[in-house]
Structure formats: C-alpha cells, structure tokens
C-alpha cells in the first residue's frame, strides 16, 4: 500500500486541503488510537492549516476501561486461586491502589496474552479457573464471542466483560452541548466489522460529515479532505475512504457471532461517565462465562480519575495532553498517573513519545 504513504500524493492532498480550507476553526474528531498514532508518527497536524484541528476522542479501549473494572480484576486474582489473563497495556494501568502488574509482583497469577485463544489454551491445560480481562471495541469483540461459542463446554473459563461500542460514544459526544465537533473520521478497523449503517443515522441526525478512514498518512489526509468537501457542499453523510478493507455492510459473520453471545447495556467510560447502550454484556445463556456472575462478586464503583488528571477532558476532545499540569513532569510512561499515559494508544503516551 505504498501509494498511501507516497510524498507527492501527501503534498497534493495538502495543497487541495488548503485550497478548500474554509479558514474558520474546524474541529475533526477521530475515535481510534491507531489514527492518533498515524497523526503523531507522520507529523500530520503540522502539515495541515492551523485552523483545521484534529482532535482525539475516546478511541483507546484501555483508556476508557473504568477503574472499578481494574479493581475488580485485582480483587478476584488476589482473593481467589485463579489465573487472570490480560492484554499487555491493561497490565500496567493503575487501579485505585495498585495495578495488575504490581499485583503479580506480589505473587498473583496474572499473565499477559496477545489473543483470546491463548487464554482458552491455558484453561484447557489447567484445573484452575482462568479469567480473561476482556476489553476492546467492535474489532476485538467478535474473536471473544467466537472463542466462547467454540468452547461452550469449557468448565473453568470466564471473562470480565469490559467491551464497549464506538457509535454510541460518538452519539453521546455529539449530544454534549459543550463539545464542538464538526465531523468525524470513523475508525477503520471497527468499521470492517460494523460497516456504514451505524454512522448513517448519526450523520443524518446531527448533520455532521462522517468519513471512514484508513491508517496510512494519505488515508487520513484524504479523509480530512472528504470531510471538508462535504462541509463545503453542505451535504453531511457517511463516506468510505478505506474501501480496500471496509464493506458497506461490514463483516456480517462477525456481527452475527457477536450478537449471539452479547447483549447491549449502559456502560461507564472512564473519565466520561455512563453512556447509554454503549457496553456489551454476556447473554443469560452464557452466564457461566461471566466472571462477575460466576464468582458472585459485584463490581464496586471506584473513583475513575485521580485528582488533577485530565484524561477525561482529553478523551472528550476538550483538552490536549499539554494542558495537563502533570504531563511529562510527574506523569510519564514510566510512572503513569492515568491510563492515557500507559496505553501505547493513549493520547498522553503518544504525545509524550512524539514531542
């Protein structure tokens, strides 16, 4: 896909963006950590006219996982004789008193894995209970659902179900009167699964351009250009820049598998608050896979944001990492205060590493 990185195309796209630039402040939000990586790695913000602002949304699954879920994971692996599996970035996110990595250093059996199938493999080889701390947006959820369906007879496996959905979060942000968003770059890989449909209603109801974008630098610039063009024509709609990977209807098999296993619920997003219909829970038929129900321990509410940390404002597009007084001073990737400084897709981590 070299053409999506080639410099002459980048320059031509920038030229075109400058030509169509409406010269007033335009705020385009993305909701994907990988888009933030592309922006930072290729220095795209500096190439764009200053009035065109590309702002971060809640696009990092690790960053939006609530502290109560982390505290629950820590409690369960400390108190019960279980193996807890988790994805790498989640391992180091601070809970109220400690992180999973600190809990492991005190002897708890916490294991970092790369795919859900590894957790299932561990469960097959042990008598112990294996609990997977299951986070992720629509890109990741179908895999979890498919492993659960394939291993329905497995007796010692469950998940802490922390899955969240992106379009309800976009809807929520668009409904907030104090957040200004002129258009969205929709997350390419979430869209390979969900397709166009969920964004359509948002583009119509809120009259905002939505462009599904890929992850090479020219993908992102082309997405910006498509949004500006829609604004100029005053015809907000959903468009797909990432046609090489996103089909109109998404991946129907993945959607079906996901819908078989999960139902929709309201969910708290760290630093943002409860967003209606933005979470997934295991359906009753699959209750035995739900760690909360299986162990009869309820997730208790914890305080999500440490005093002073601006993660919440950053993920709502109302602040940038440099606005936080702790950024790079007492909060660094080595000693993070908020999850946004831990996750490789967190806005603070990315800004720290690329500035």
């Amino acid at each position, binding site marked *: *896909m070299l053409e999506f990185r080639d410099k002459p195309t980048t320059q031509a796209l920038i030229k075109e963006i400058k030509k169509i630039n409406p010269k007033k402040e335009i705020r385009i939000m993305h909701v994907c950590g990988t888009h933030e990586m592309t922006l930072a790695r290729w220095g795209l913000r500096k190439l764009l006219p200053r009035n065109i602002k590309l702002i971060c949304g809640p696009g990092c699954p690790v960053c939006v996982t609530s502290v109560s879920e982390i505290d629950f994971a820590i409690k369960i692996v400390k108190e019960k004789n279980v193996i807890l599996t988790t994805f790498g970035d989640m391992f180091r996110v601070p809970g109220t008193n400690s992180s999973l990595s600190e809990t492991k250093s005190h002897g708890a059996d916490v294991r970092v894995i790369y795919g859900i199938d590894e957790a299932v493999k561990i469960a097959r080889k042990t008598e112990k209970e294996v609990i997977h701390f299951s986070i992720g947006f629509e890109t990741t959820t179908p895999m979890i659902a*498919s492993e659960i369906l394939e291993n329905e007879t497995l007796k010692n496996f469950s998940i802490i179900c922390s899955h969240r959905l992106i379009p309800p979060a976009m809807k929520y942000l668009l409904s907030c009167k104090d957040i200004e968003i002129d258009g969205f770059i929709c997350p390419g890989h979430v869209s*390979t699964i969900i397709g166009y449909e969920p964004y359509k209603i948002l583009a119509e109801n809120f009259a905002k351009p939505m462009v599904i974008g890929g992850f090479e630098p020219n993908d992102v610039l082309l997405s910006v250009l498509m949004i500006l063009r829609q604004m100029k024509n005053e015809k907000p709609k959903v468009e797909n820049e990432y046609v090489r990977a996103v089909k109109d209807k998404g991946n129907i098999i*993945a959607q079906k598998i996901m819908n078989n296993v999960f139902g929709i619920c309201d969910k708290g997003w760290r630093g943002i608050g409860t967003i209606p219909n933005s979470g997934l829970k295991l359906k009753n038929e699959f209750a035995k896979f739900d760690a909360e129900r299986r162990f009869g321990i309820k997730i208790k509410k914890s305080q999500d944001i440490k005093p002073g940390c601006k993660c919440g404002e950053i993920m709502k597009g109302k602040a940038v990492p440099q606005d936080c007084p702790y950024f790079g001073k007492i909060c660094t990737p080595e000693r993070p205060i908020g999850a946004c400084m831990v996750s490789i897709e967190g806005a603070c981590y990315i800004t720290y590493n690329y500035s």
Partner: protein
Amino acid sequence: MCLAVPAKIEKIKDKYALVDFEGLKKNIKIILTPEVKVGDYVLVHAGFSIQKINKKEAKESLKIWGTIR
C-alpha cells in the same frame, strides 16, 4: 488495540490459515472470513482475519482523490 495488519494467505486448513506478514509467518483463524482463498490478502487482528483486502479497491480510494482533483 484495534490495530490490524495485512497478511497474505499461504495455506488453509479448515478454520486455520498460515499467513505471511512480509516475511513473518503465523497461523491465524479464518473463521470470520470463511470465503478467503490461498493468495488473498487479509487484515489480521489478534490472531483472526477480520476482512479480505481488495487490492482493486485499494486503488479506488486514490481514485476518489483523483476525481476530487
């Protein structure tokens, strides 16, 4: 976390495929994209293929840009 990487399918054995990520070979599950064949490119996320990549359509987004120009 939603990162997905393109790979080429080299061998298929029922639900599994051996894929090539520009030199690095790995086994993945193709249960979400059962239509794929040897030689196809797929996007791989967390050990699963999530969508077939259409090379012809890859050119298309640049064509969108072309028509804009």
